[in-house]
């Protein structure tokens, strides 16, 4: 079954075609190669999935990539259950978004570029999930980062866009820094960085410790945490979350594909992939869970007050990613991946819908929207579904996955578990609140924009609508393959992934599970109702609240001032050091001072001193000779 190779390399081919021919030859047909390619890989992915279901997993090397001394790594692929799921998500959601983009990007002067980047992104994303060693993972990891850099900064004339792209790349570099160190540690420990040997041997290193600055630390903890740094960067968890909101400067399909469905979930994928390592370290797991939990609440709270439609969704994404990490953190990797999978549907849908709204309105500000329901019904419905699903309203995809996480958190019966469980519940409250706040502000009430804008309001073209519908189906029914046993489902998803991520042993009764489910559901509904009250019935309240607790509002509105914090603690000092200290002082003054100073002083010595000795007066010359004679003799007399 070599055909799996087609999955990544079809998009790559598409990229090459587009980048070479796109500008002159294809022009506005540039979407063909890309779309065909990704649909092709989707098909192949499905076939692969079935192979996997039939128990045919792949782990083979293509060729040796780097070999140096005892370090050897090859370009090779691993296709198992986890990979298969990711493949489906990436290619499936990906192809829909591709199609959507045809309409959305229509007429943009960078049309071919856009599709080229998309294909490249898909290629790297697939490499990321298909690699059978950490270096390929790293390759994909950096690759998707690069593509997101391109796509965020797609409209590079806009300073904001360019900045956002750069920011995304550099912030990610911080994560990757840890990630790379993790890989080094893995190599130092295991002598290889291929998954298979590492994960098999990992057990024997469980209790090994290393000395960091005099402190004995568990080796696995160190490795796990270093790897997690990468995940934090890529999946925009605190404290490296700052790039994701800004990333919304990119075209909406990009936000949907990269910053909702696929790339940002790479972190989750990685943690799930490395579960053997994480499982060995209490501390690491705890950190993962806590970071995830805090991020989810933190982001959700911000989402409640944002006005940029895309940013709202972005923060929601942050919060959901947080949930996924919580799942991983409590050992329920399956749950995490499951949420990843459902999240891909409803979040992509939210974005695309938002996209079609923006397409119609021409800006992102929810405060200047409203009453769009009648202008663009389909968009409205699909988005509504997505919101419900995201809000965890029972029956929809989001419900099952989120509930799974909440339950796992509770059932892990550790203090951490309890803590994050509480956080989860808060999240469960926020999510429907901000989702519907957005829905209501956008579609209900009467239009708050200018008349000029109002004239242009219209439903988006078919090519954009159809993907929306398809995704809506996913958001609605996507979760049904993972219905937990307690609801009479088979939890197929979890079982399917078991060979890879194992199965956490939770001891909890069905009763408890029902209770938890009920609790979270009620909380969600409360959130929903609150949203209804605030933004449908008593629209005055939010403003009033905003006035009441100005401070909180300000803090939330300014995203807890994290960006400013970084700006003043990291960015500015570095630049200041660079400009004032290094350029201005060490190089210019000290080093150059010495380098130029020595010749200068010699020159001065020569010109002002030694030259003056040569007076041109004969008797002085004679005196010098006499002096020479005298001093030589005197020296001899003294030194004998």
């Amino acid at each position: 079954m070599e055909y799996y190779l087609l999955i990544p390399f079809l998009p790559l081919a598409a990229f090459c075609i587009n980048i070479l021919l796109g500008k002159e030859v294809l022009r506005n047909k540039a979407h063909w190669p890309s779309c065909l390619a990704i649909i092709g890989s989707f098909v192949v992915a499905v076939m692969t999935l079935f192979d996997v279901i039939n128990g045919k997993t792949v782990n083979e090397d293509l060729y040796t990539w780097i070999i140096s001394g005892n370090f050897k790594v090859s370009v090779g692929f691993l296709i198992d259950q986890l990979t298969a799921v990711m493949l489906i998500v990436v290619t499936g959601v990906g192809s829909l978004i591709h199609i959507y983009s045809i309409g959305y990007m229509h007429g943009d002067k960078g049309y071919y570029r856009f599709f080229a980047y998309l294909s490249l992104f898909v290629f790297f994303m697939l490499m990321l999930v298909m690699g059978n060693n950490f270096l390929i993972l790293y390759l994909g990891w950096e690759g998707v980062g690069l593509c997101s850099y391109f796509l965020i900064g797609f409209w590079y004339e806009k300073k904001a866009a360019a900045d956002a792209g750069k920011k995304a790349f550099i912030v990610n570099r911080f994560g990757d820094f840890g990630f790379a160190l993790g890989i080094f540690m893995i190599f130092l420990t295991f002598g290889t960085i291929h998954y298979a040997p590492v994960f098999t041997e990992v057990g024997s290193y469980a209790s090994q410790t290393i000395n960091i600055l005099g402190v004995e630390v568990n080796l696995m903890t160190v490795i796990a945490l270093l790897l997690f740094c990468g995940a934090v960067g890529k999946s925009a968890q605190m404290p490296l979350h700052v790039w994701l909101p800004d990333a919304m400067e990119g075209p909406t399909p990009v936000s949907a594909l990269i910053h909702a469905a696929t790339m940002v979930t790479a972190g989750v994928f990685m943690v799930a992939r490395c579960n053997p390592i994480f499982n060995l370290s209490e501390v690491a797991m705890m950190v993962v869970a806590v970071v995830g939990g805090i991020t989810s609440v933190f982001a959700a709270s911000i989402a409640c007050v944002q006005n940029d439609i895309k940013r709202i969704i972005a923060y929601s994404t942050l919060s959901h990613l947080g949930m996924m990490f919580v799942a991983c953190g409590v050992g329920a990797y399956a749950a995490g991946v499951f949420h990843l999978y459902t999240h891909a549907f409803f979040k992509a849908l939210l974005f695309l819908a938002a996209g079609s709204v923006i397409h119609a309105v021409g800006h992102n500000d929810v405060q200047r929207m409203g009453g769009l329901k009648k202008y663009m019904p389909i968009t409205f419905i699909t988005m509504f579904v997505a919101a419900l699903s995201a809000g965890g309203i029972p029956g929809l995809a989001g419900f099952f996955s989120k509930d799974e996480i909440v339950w796992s958190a509770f059932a892990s019966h550790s203090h951490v578990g309890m803590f994050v469980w509480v956080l989860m519940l808060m999240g469960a409250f926020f999510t429907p609140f901000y989702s519907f706040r957005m829905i209501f502000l956008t579609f209900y009430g009467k239009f708050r924009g200018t008349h000029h804008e109002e004239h242009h309001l219209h439903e988006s073209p078919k090519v954009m609508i159809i993907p929306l519908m398809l995704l809506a189906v996913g958001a609605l029914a996507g979760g049904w393959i993972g219905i937990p046993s307690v609801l009479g489902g088979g939890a197929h998803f979890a079982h399917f992934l078991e060979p890879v991520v194992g199965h956490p042993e939770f001891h909890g009764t069905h009763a408890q599970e029902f209770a938890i489910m009920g609790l979270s559901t009620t909380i969600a509904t409360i959130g929903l109702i609150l949203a209804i009250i605030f933004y449908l019935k008593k629209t005055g309240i939010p403003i009033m609240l905003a006035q009441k607790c100005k401070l909180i509002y300000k803090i939330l509105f300014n995203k807890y001032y994290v960006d400013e914090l970084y700006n003043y603690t990291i960015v500015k000092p570095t630049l200041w050091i660079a400009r004032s200290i290094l350029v201005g002082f060490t190089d210019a003054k000290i080093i150059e001072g010495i380098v130029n100073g020595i010749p200068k002083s010699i020159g001065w010595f020569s010109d002002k001193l030694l030259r003056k000795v040569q007076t041109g007066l004969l008797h002085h010359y004679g005196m010098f000779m006499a002096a020479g004679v005298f001093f030589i003799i005197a020296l001899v007399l003294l030194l004998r």
Partner: protein
Amino acid sequence: MVPLNWYILLSAAIFTVGVFGFLSRRNIIIMFMSIELMLNAVNISLVSFSHYLQDMRGQILAFFVIAVAAAEAAIGLAIIVALFRNKATAHVDEIHEMKG
């Protein structure tokens, strides 16, 4: 019998007097005369040595020294004359066209 060291002392004395003259006089000709003085000092020591060592070399050398001194005088004075033609001075401290 006069000890040899007296002669050495004498020649040294005259030699240094010559040195002094060479170093301190302004007049080129006198400077040159001081050099002649030094040569004579050398000659004295040479002759005295050759007398005390009962060996003729010293006197031979002294003889050559006198010859060379004559030659030097000729050349030197010619140079001074040539200088005079262009620049009527015989004072070293006025001759410093080239310096540094």
